[in-house]
């Protein structure tokens, strides 16, 4: 059971870490395109969508590193921990030893850290999320995106994976 939930969590994390949308209505006109999709941004504010990997300002997408010094902090505090969490979650799910369980625990802690950093940054200025100002608490619900909710879902699933992970059994 732990393996299955862990793999699903790892795949969801991978999607949120690297994708802009989950494509829906895939068509085959002029190559492979999609009619719509589930956007995976963390927050959408003032026409800037902030993802785990960077931002999209209208049409132009930017990776964190392109933002200069602030971007490096964003990369270190938001994207890198999420990628490490994804790797640890997947490797921990396939391992039945104590090491695997510890890996999943570290993964969950990292995800909680990413969630806390993004939430605080949203409310205090949006400097590390690439948005132009603090989001008022009244506007927060409308600004939050599917990526943010998926992050919460991954944390919850990670906790379930931890609880059902088999301990190291040596005979």
């Amino acid at each position: 059971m732990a393996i299955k939930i862990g793999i699903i969590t790892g795949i969801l994390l991978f999607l949120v870490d690297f994708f802009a949308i989950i494509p829906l209505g895939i068509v085959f006109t002029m190559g492979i395109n999609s009619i719509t999709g589930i956007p995976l941004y963390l927050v959408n504010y003032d026409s800037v969508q902030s993802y785990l990997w960077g931002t999209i300002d209208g049409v132009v997408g930017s990776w964190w590193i392109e933002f200069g010094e602030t971007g490096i902090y964003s990369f270190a505090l938001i994207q890198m921990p999420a990628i490490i969490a994804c790797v640890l979650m997947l490797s921990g799910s396939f391992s039945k030893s104590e090491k695997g369980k510890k890996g999943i625990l570290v993964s969950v802690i990292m995800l909680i850290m990413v969630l806390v950093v993004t939430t605080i940054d949203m409310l205090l200025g949006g400097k590390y999320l690439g948005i132009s100002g603090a989001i008022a608490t009244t506007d927060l619900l409308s600004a939050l995106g599917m990526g943010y909710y998926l992050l919460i879902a991954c944390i919850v699933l990670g906790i379930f994976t931890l609880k059902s992970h088999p301990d190291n059994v040596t005979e």
Partner: protein
Amino acid sequence: MTNNAESDNGSKGFRILPFVGGILALYVSFFALIPLGLFAPLFGTSLTDLSIEILVIDDLYFFIWGITDGVTMATDFSTFTLESLFPMLIWIIMVSAGILGLVGSAYNEDPKKIKKKIKLAALFIIIVIIFYVSLYIFYYLDDSSVVIIGFGFYILCLIVPFYILGAHRITDYHEIE
């Protein structure tokens, strides 16, 4: 007496029927059409296609993943509102049915558990079919609307017997023991 019944209880190895059902369920959940005449020079382009909408009501195409008039989206998942909650739920149910079918086709475990998973997947598809049948009846009784059943609906109806037969085959082998 050999242990043929134990090794043939349907819980070992690969089960093709739930696998095909799972693939079909996931395909309908993510794709808008079946490409025909794939065109090699431009990768992934097709010369023609078969659209897999579930229903067509007054020139609105109802897919599992949303509603479109061919130009714009009538519903989408970009905003988390009450209106988008129900379509999202239908989509999640379909994706879950697909994943359960795939998991039920490949994992080697207790036959009862595999059977439960596949039956649950079939139940999910039946719920979705009931939803669209209700929608069809509602709009059919409304004389001002034109309702057409799409090819996607027939695919949904095809998935259910795949799952039921897949679960039934496991039951048969288990009862021989």
